């Protein structure tokens, strides 16, 4: 490898972070967009380089300012973080490419450079979490990402975004503060904030009360951020009223990053040390996951607003991800990590298709998209492909993760059988709510007095199809996400007997 590859983990954060103020200085929205997209593409390239490096067996550890590990700040990339980086930067890049045409309707031209600045900050924060190896740094990146995404969500023209984002701000801050309390207590007991160090030193104090309390605070705090049922109430409104491309970006990766942290902490930091820690998974997270799947999908069945429906579907999908992890088995955690990747693909593509619809339709209710397929066949085609992936039809990415998830559940004996039924029921409900959209778009006559629609702008359509085809590609050639996620599962479970 060339020497600069050593700096990749730092560049992953530095590039978007430093481009952000530059973008603010650009007065023209076209230039600002171009600069932001270039920065995002660049970090996507870095993420790809890192992932390929990780798959080659390389390890990336980077000491900021060359201070040695427990004192200096350490950055590190392994298979799990590489997968997350791919998601975050990939989603950001696709959404930014789509933003060129869809943002004008939602944000005034002169405010757009500021919007792109906030976007890059959010990207820097979200990418910073996976590369950090330091618990406090993670908190800072988490808050950078959160503050920037509050700005992004409230940037749209819909005033209902404001109360939604206020709720998100309150719940997000509480979540982050819980996390801060948790790492404070761990620091109190171990005297370190470096995750790897923490993992070693925690052995001595593993079953003392402060560590147990810390585990509780961190789990709840991150569950809030990850929209784990029943802490998901901020999510549907925030996703619904945000500008469309923001929804694409955040729906694809923001909750995933919180789940990433949750798994990291629960398996990496606490798992080897806390006695009976699997209790937390089998008796706490698993029932929540089941409820999330059933209730999230159930509510989605009755939603008439497209974005809200997909947002509730996201609540359910978080359930699938947690369900896999709650088996505490190699197969289960692999399925969980894999589903993070595949769900991001499916949901990203779905929201991109919704963005296409939003550029032409009068609204995003099922009635307003009636008959849309007649004039926007490509958009709806992409929606159907991504929808099939969400349901888990063979040949799509969603199928691969559902397959591994069901296989993992079947290995769990009798409870596994019931859980398979839950997974299948969830898929059937997904089938129904996706079908409702398809039926409205393909088989309902458009409302009277509505001007005939046109197909979405070509660039937007190209991006949407790129995402939809990615669903097919990773459904047929799933080796990349599978090798990353099984490597991630091995890292996470390396202490579990």
């Amino acid at each position, binding site marked *: 490898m060339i020497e600069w590859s050593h700096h990749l983990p730092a560049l992953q954060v530095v590039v978007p972070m430093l481009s952000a103020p530059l973008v603010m200085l650009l007065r023209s929205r076209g230039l600002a967009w171009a600069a932001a997209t270039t920065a995002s593409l660049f970090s996507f390239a870095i993420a790809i380089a890192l992932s390929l490096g990780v798959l080659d067996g390389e390890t990336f550890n980077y000491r900021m300012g060359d201070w040695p590990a427990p004192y200096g700040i350490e950055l590190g990339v392994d298979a799990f973080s590489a997968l997350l980086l791919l998601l975050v930067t990939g989603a950001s890049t696709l959404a930014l490419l789509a933003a060129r045409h869809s943002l004008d309707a939602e944000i005034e031209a002169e405010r757009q450079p500021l919007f792109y600045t906030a976007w890059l900050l959010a990207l820097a924060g979200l990418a910073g979490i996976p590369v950090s190896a330091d618990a406090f740094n993670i908190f800072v990146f988490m808050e950078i990402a959160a503050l920037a995404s509050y700005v992004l969500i409230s940037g749209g023209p819909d005033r209902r975004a404001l109360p939604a984002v206020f709720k998100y701000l309150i719940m997000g801050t509480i979540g982050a503060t819980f996390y801060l309390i948790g790492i404070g207590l761990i620091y109190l007991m171990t005297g370190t904030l470096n995750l790897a160090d923490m993992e070693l030193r925690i052995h001595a104090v593993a079953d003392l009360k402060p560590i147990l309390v810390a585990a509780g605070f961190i789990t709840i705090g991150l569950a809030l951020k990850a929209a784990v049922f029943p802490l998901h109430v901020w999510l549907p409104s925030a996703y619904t009223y945000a500008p469309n491309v923001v929804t694409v970006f955040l729906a694809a990766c923001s909750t995933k990053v919180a789940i990433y942290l949750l798994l990291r902490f629960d398996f990496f930091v606490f798992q080897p040390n806390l006695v009976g820690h699997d209790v937390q998974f089998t008796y706490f997270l698993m029932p929540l996951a089941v409820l999330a799947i059933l209730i999230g999908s159930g509510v989605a069945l009755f939603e008439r607003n497209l974005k809200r429906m997909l947002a509730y579907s996201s609540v359910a999908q978080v359930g699938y991800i947690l369900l896999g992890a709650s088996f505490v088995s190699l197969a289960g955690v692999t399925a969980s990590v894999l589903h993070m990747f595949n769900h991001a693909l499916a949901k990203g593509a779905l929201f991109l298709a919704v963005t296409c619809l939003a550029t032409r339709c009068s609204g995003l209710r099922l009635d307003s998209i009636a008959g849309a397929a007649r004039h926007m066949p490509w958009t709806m085609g992409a929606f159907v492909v991504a929808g099939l992936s969400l*349901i*888990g*039809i*063979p*040949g799509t990415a969603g199928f*691969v993760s559902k*397959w591994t998830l*069901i*296989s993992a559940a*079947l*290995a769990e004996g009798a409870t596994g059988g019931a859980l*398979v039924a839950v997974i*299948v*029921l969830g*898929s*059937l409900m997904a*089938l129904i709510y996706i*079908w409702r959209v398809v*039926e409205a778009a393909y*088989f309902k006559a458009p409302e009277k007095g509505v001007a005939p629609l046109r197909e979405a702008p070509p660039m937007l359509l190209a991006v949407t199809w790129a995402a939809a085809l990615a669903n097919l590609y990773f*459904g*047929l*050639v*799933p080796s990349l996400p*599978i090798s990353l996620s099984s490597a991630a599962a091995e890292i996470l479970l390396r202490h579990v007997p």
Partner: protein
Amino acid sequence: MSSETLILIAVFLPVSGALLIRLAGRSPNLREVVTLSVAVLLFATVLLLLLGVQAGERPGVVLHEILPGLAIAFEVEPLGIIFGLVASGLWIVTSIYSIGYMRSHHEKNQTRFYVCFALALSGAMGVAFAANMLTLFLFYEILTLSTYPLVTHAGTEEAKRAGRTYLGILLFTSIAFLLTATIWTWNVAGTLDFTVGGILADKASPAVAAALLLLFVFGTGKAALMPFHRWLPGAMVAPAPVSALLHAVAVVKAGVFSILKIAVYIFGIDFLAGVSTAQVLAYVAGATILIGSFIAMRQDNLKRRLAYSTISQLSYIVLGAMLASPLAVIGAAMHIATHALGKITLFFCAGAIDVALHKKNISDMRGIGRAMPFTMGAFFVASLSIIGLPPLVGLWSKWYLALGTLQADELALLGVLMVSSLLNVAYLLPIPIRAFFSKPANGETFTGIKEAPWPSVAALVFTALGCIVLFFCAEPLYRLAHAILPQ
């Protein structure tokens, strides 16, 4: 050309055909020439494959491996070639029939019709030649999705409602049961390849095997086993060629074919005979046979009557598979072909009557034999074949099914088969008899012959003659069916 290439051609030729049809959409003549030539080429390809299979080969090809050991792969074996031959051969006949029917009916969106038809055939070929359960499932779903626009072709409220039921039941059963069973099998057996003698034999506990069998059989909604049969009568709103090929041949036969394939190659008939739910399912199939026939008797709409008759006849095949005796399986495999030939003729006739005389109800069909002698003659022949009388090919499959019940020591089910034959007589034969010998209702008079367009009549006469010819040349079919069993 190697057999591997031939398999891929068989599966993907209809897809490229669909593209060409779409491109030729502007000119109806060109479009139909393309359809026909693709159909003929496809049949020729399957015939070439047949030669290999008759020589004892089982050529296979792996298209793409998704996960280690889990691939999209094809393999040609005797059961698949029976289904492949039936579907591709009858596609030619149906295409000829469609040309007459669709034009004289002035149907809209004819290009979409032919495109979806070709795609559905690709699905059927994929099902026929699937080398493992995953591939079968994939093409099973392609078949469902590509036939949906055909069911809703008319665009009316009724058609949409039927389409919703169609998709609802087929997707529900397949995703809820069939896919679960597939993944479960993978977990238990570590493979999904169709293997002579089955893959579950030493691996699944009796309870697991019993549950899997239920999931597989009810998951195959296309087999229209009660209580998942409601989509089939509803789907009869489709144009007659669709009902004929898809709902008497490709779609429903894909369902029963899958069940038969699962019985023979996933469970293996020796193992299946010991699975506790197999007998239960055999009785469910028996009940479906009788109930379907009874409902058929009460239908006045000809296509609906034929639909319920199809439900009843499909369960013959399910019954044969669940009996798991060698002769019953042979009978079931033969019934795929023999019932297809008979039923497609009946649907052709129903469509022809609709086109020529605009009649849909049986009560209006008295005396029409004078106007449509060829059609009603063919109807008569096909009815006899469905009933299972010599010298028609329907006899052979019923013969072996009946022997199969004896072999499995299920006298009650033998009784079911016999009663069902009588019921067939009761609901099918009166139609041609009244058409020829009764006076037309409400003072209509039929002077002179008023048949449907010649391509349609030619098609239905051809299939009716097929019923007769195959009676005398049934040996190759029997040999193929016999080759399914472990030697």
